[in-house]
């Protein structure tokens, strides 16, 4: 039946092969099937950015992506972030840019994608990119300060 799909993807560097319902979202594949719960259910309709992951390096909203549509791709979640993204996580930590933490994984992946693409991202580029991610705790000032510091530490590294 075509209401099921044999999906093969790389998730955080590991090959995953599963038979899934065609209606499975990427977010539910990650959270329910693979137990990678770092990517969050926020609005569930693509507005808030809490479910942001990277697919072949680009940011993607997992809540409105069908798992079947990332066939053959490479997916990175917050669980797959390590030393390469530490400069972002450290800057967020230093500026106390995470309170409830629900938006934080999405913001880390959004910024990682931005800085990989644009090592010299300026204030305008940071603000434009973070337009993709809603935070209801911090008022954004601390997140922007952390993003600026992350950009500076990366370009000086």
């Amino acid at each position, binding site marked *: 039946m075509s209401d099921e799909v044999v999906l093969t993807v790389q998730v955080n560097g590991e090959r995953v092969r599963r038979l899934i319902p065609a209606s499975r979202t990427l977010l539910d594949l990650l959270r329910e099937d693979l137990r990678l719960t770092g990517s969050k259910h926020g609005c569930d309709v693509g507005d808030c950015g809490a479910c942001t992951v990277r697919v072949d390096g680009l940011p993607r909203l997992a809540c409105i992506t069908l798992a079947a549509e990332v066939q053959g791709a490479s997916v990175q979640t917050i669980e797959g972030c390590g030393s390469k993204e530490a400069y972002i996580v450290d800057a967020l930590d230093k500026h106390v840019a995470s309170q409830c933490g629900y938006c934080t994984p999405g913001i880390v992946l959004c910024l990682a994608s931005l800085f990989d693409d644009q090592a010299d991202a300026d204030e305008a580029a940071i603000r434009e990119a973070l337009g*993709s991610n809603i935070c209801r705790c911090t008022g954004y000032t601390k997140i922007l300060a952390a993003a600026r510091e992350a950009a500076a530490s990366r370009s000086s590294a």
Partner: protein
Amino acid sequence: MLPLAHFEYLAPTEAVEASRLLASPDARLVAGGTDLLVSMKHRLFEPRLLVSARRIAEMQGIVPAAGWLSIGASCTLRDVSRHGIVQQRLPALAAACRTVATPTIQAMATLGGNLMLDTRCMYYNQPAGWRASLGYCLKREGSVCHVAPKGRGCYATQAADTVPALWLLGAEAEFVSVSGTRRIRVSDLYREDGMNWLTVRPDEVLTRIHVPLEDRSVAHRKLRTRQAIDYAQVLVAVAAPAQRGEPWSAVVSSVAPRPILVESETAEGLAELSFRGSQPLSTHLASAPWRKKMVRVEVARAVDALLRSHAGSG
């Protein structure tokens, strides 16, 4: 959580095969999915079959050919806005792509999807429970339009950000179906009916968007509440006359089911004619009179931008 209903899924490799699949009722094409998946979660669409555009080669790539730029319908808004020829020769299109929703959505959503975007309304683009509590609306499952209860039709608005710029750039959309291939001007793609807003059939697959590389001076403006995520309260594109004797043109959108073309002999008259020709309705974020006034303001700003750039280059 808003779960998706079950459906079948096929990913054909040719547009004509997709067309054959889309001829069956309750089938839909999915490309970026950024609007479709949301609408499916809200039970606005309940397709039994999703046909993926993912593997269809005819819908991919951006290639210049004989004075035109041919853009695959599956190209993301991010790819379109970053393409060198688009940036240099079609800056209004690049600007329009970059005002869609958010950068993350621009990396998913496609140019073809933007052209084929469903019309929108504050009483329609809501979760199923929200709509049920109101007794539904004319566009979906109900019998009354809550925006214009005394009106006869559906006033859901055409809100696709790239349409006004593509319209004035003279773009054409190429559709493939089992009955052949045809090209339709973007200006001929939309109807004055929020429920039946496209002039093409559901089994016609938008494969490519062809944009003439004529260096027409077009400016794009989008007025919205926040500078990210939101759809437009007012969307305008303005084109300067290509030759002496031609009129100034504006396309005003996000205020009616079909974008509105306005022409004026003078630059000064365009904003006032656009104001008079637009009848936006109130939304939960902005009143109708304010939106109507802002049509005049945004057209005037676009005209100013074009006059300034001409003065700069001349």
